[in-house]
């Protein structure tokens, strides 16, 4: 029978994070599971060594650290103020001519009317007349489809795997060939 090892609960168990019920369940499991006990011991050793890694970090000169932080903070604030100032300057710098907003509104409306007129003149994209090249291509495709349709009764009687050649040269079939293929073998 497969055993459910409480793998993700071992470290919370070691650190005393589990509720009383969880703790009792994991504890009972540990008593009977040598594999989990070994994992818990190894994890415990690593956890205590990890706590020592932090002791090993060499601390900087805190006065210099704080001085540098203040300079960076001032620089960040100056940058922000500059950005705000630049936007304000741009707003002030863009001065409208004396005729002001009404003329801009009229111009915008005129451009919009022109754009609408242009679209209506050309028609919606899906209804545009095709170009000469497109027309020729469409005609070719249509005629090919008509040929296939005319020979549909032949195709109906074909075994696809055996008559691949026939399908490939369907448009070249003469009336006699059609007769042959229409008659089931």
């Amino acid at each position, binding site marked *: 029978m497969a055993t459910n090892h409480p793998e*993700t609960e071992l470290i919370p168990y070691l650190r005393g994070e589990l509720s009383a019920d969880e703790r009792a369940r994991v504890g009972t499991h540990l008593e009977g599971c040598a594999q989990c006990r070994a994992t818990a011991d190894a994890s415990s050793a690593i956890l205590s*060594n990890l706590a020592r*890694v932090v002791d090993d970090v060499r601390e900087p000169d805190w006065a210099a650290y704080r001085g*540098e932080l203040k300079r960076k903070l001032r620089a960040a604030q100056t940058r922000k103020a500059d950005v705000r100032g630049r936007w304000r300057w741009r707003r002030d710098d863009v001065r409208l001519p004396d005729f002001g907003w009404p003329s801009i509104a009229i111009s915008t409306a005129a451009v919009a009317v022109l754009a609408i007129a242009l679209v209506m003149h050309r028609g919606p994209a899906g209804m545009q007349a095709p170009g000469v090249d497109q027309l020729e291509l469409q005609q070719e495709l249509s005629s090919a489809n008509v040929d296939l349709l005319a020979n549909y009764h032949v195709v109906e009687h074909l075994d696809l795997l055996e008559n691949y050649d026939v399908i490939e040269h369907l448009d070249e079939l003469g009336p006699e060939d059609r007769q042959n293929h229409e008659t089931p073998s």
Partner: protein
Amino acid sequence: MEPSDEELCKRIAARDADAFDLMVDRHQGRAYRLASSILGNEADARDVSQDAFIRLYESAGRFDGRSRFSTWFYRILVNLCIDHQRKNRWWRRLAPLATPGGGDDPDERAFDPPSGEAGPETEAMLKQSIGRLRPALEKLSPQQRAAVLLQTQEGFTSREIGEVLKCSEATARVHVHRGIAQLRKILGND
């Protein structure tokens, strides 16, 4: 009585420079050490922890007090560390993890004696073990490393780690479990 972190944060939001100084003074050591452990580089740890304090100054007004201040602040710090690592991933492949002792061989790196109690043999073994931990930590994913270090160095619970990493408590437990399992494997304890 010393003001709480939450009170200081409110004052910082009102642009109280003294409150900011006090907050930096209170958290600089832990922030720097955690960043250094996650990033494995003292210069980066200095920059990133200072950036975290600048973010704290700029966004103190957004701290809503629903979680502990330390959880909120360490979320800023850990996110900056993870971002920094992502940005510098290509470079870190070329440059090995910096350690106080210098050299590439983990066993040769210099460490301060961990305690005066241990005998020379135990001390050497411990030194060696810790020396191997640093490069092993480097092999963990940023989330695993942050989760493991928040737990061992900051004493965060799984729920708090989940708040910092913006994941559930169960996911935080999985990050820690996988991180430690990976370390066991690398260090040959598995």
